[in-house]
């Protein structure tokens, strides 16, 4: 892809990371941590769902402001925003289901529509949905809006599937994992479009990570490993921070913005 060069001849950088194995690893951990941290904040801290949601949303807004100020991929900023979106997305869906009693089928369909509309507007505006060329604020806005809806959709759809089919954590994780593997094989061997594959898999990593988080943190009498939300969140937080520091020092994941 040709490099985008600005009028003053400096190359433009993509503001979001290259899609590599590292990317998916941290993404999964961010999702898992979002699930367990959201549980911890609203249950253990005793603030209740509504207060916790408001506080975390405010922190997310601040993090997104910081992210939008960056003009290249800055791991700390990007992944902080992703982890917070994971937490806030979980809290919002839980709010809708627990406080407002909105059925999971409704939230799943609503978020699917919201995501589709976002992609439509994005495409009409930018003529490309490429994640390798996020170098304007407007494209960033579409990107992060899509990310937010993929988290909400992933949460709702994942909960819906697990509930309707009474799957345990392990079974649910295996199901979502299988679909992700299938889509990956489609991309590598059957010419499935890269951007389509990216977003579908991105949605599915949410329920996959959530199942994994529940498997680790939930009590053994319910089929989990009983580590608890505190330890699980802490383990993943430390791991994410370590990888982000590593990425920052090595400048991994940066790429010049592609054409489109």
């Amino acid at each position: 892809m040709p490099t985008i060069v600005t009028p003053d001849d400096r190359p433009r950088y993509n503001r979001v990371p290259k899609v590599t194995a590292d990317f998916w690893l941290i993404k999964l951990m961010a999702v898992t941590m979002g699930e367990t941290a959201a549980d911890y904040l609203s249950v253990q801290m005793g603030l209740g769902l509504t207060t916790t949601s408001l506080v975390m949303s405010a922190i997310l807004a601040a993090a997104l402001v910081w992210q939008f100020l960056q003009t290249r991929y800055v791991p700390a900023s990007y992944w902080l925003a992703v982890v917070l979106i994971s937490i806030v997305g979980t809290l919002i869906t839980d709010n809708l289901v627990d406080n407002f009693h909105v059925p999971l089928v409704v939230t799943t369909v609503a978020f699917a529509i919201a995501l589709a509309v976002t992609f439509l507007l994005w495409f009409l505006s930018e003529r490309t949905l490429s994640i390798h060329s996020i170098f304007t604020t407007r494209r960033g806005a579409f990107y992060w809006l899509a990310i937010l809806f993929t988290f909400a959709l992933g949460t709702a759809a994942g909960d819906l599937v697990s509930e309707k089919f009474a799957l345990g954590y392990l079974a649910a994780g295996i199901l979502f994992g299988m679909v992700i593997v299938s889509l990956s094989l489609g991309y590598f061997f059957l010419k499935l479009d890269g951007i389509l594959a990216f977003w579908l898999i991105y949605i599915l990593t949410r329920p996959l990570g959530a199942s994994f988080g529940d498997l680790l943190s939930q009590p053994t009498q319910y089929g989990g490993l009983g580590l608890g939300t505190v330890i699980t969140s802490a383990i993943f937080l430390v791991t994410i921070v370590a990888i982000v520091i590593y990425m920052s020092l090595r400048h991994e994941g940066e790429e010049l913005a592609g054409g489109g």
Partner: protein
Amino acid sequence: MKQILLAILLIAVPVAAFTGFQVYATSKNTAPAAAGLGDLSSLKIIIADVQALAAKGDLAGAAKRVTDFESAWDQGEPAIRPLNPTFWGNIDGASDAALKALREPTPSAAKVEKNLSSLMAELTDPSKPAS
């Protein structure tokens, strides 16, 4: 369009395989038809404590102890609810009523006792809809 169809196919195949396997595995394994919610005795122990405190007239203490139940119930939701969402819902409704009764500005002992009894009944047999 072809891409969308390909994506749908790639999603449908593992889902079908998984479902097929699940159906096969559970048919071989004649599991009991009525899916209960498993062992809720730890929750019942907490409610028994709450009932004891309320019976002694210590409604403030009861309200404090019931938060332990609330935490445990919320934490257990991802595990318990899928086992039988209807049964889970019956308990959850009774739980909400009991929590509400205990958290009123001036709780009524009679109302608290009634709601706690309903909750205990649901925990014992969640197949009955909340009274």
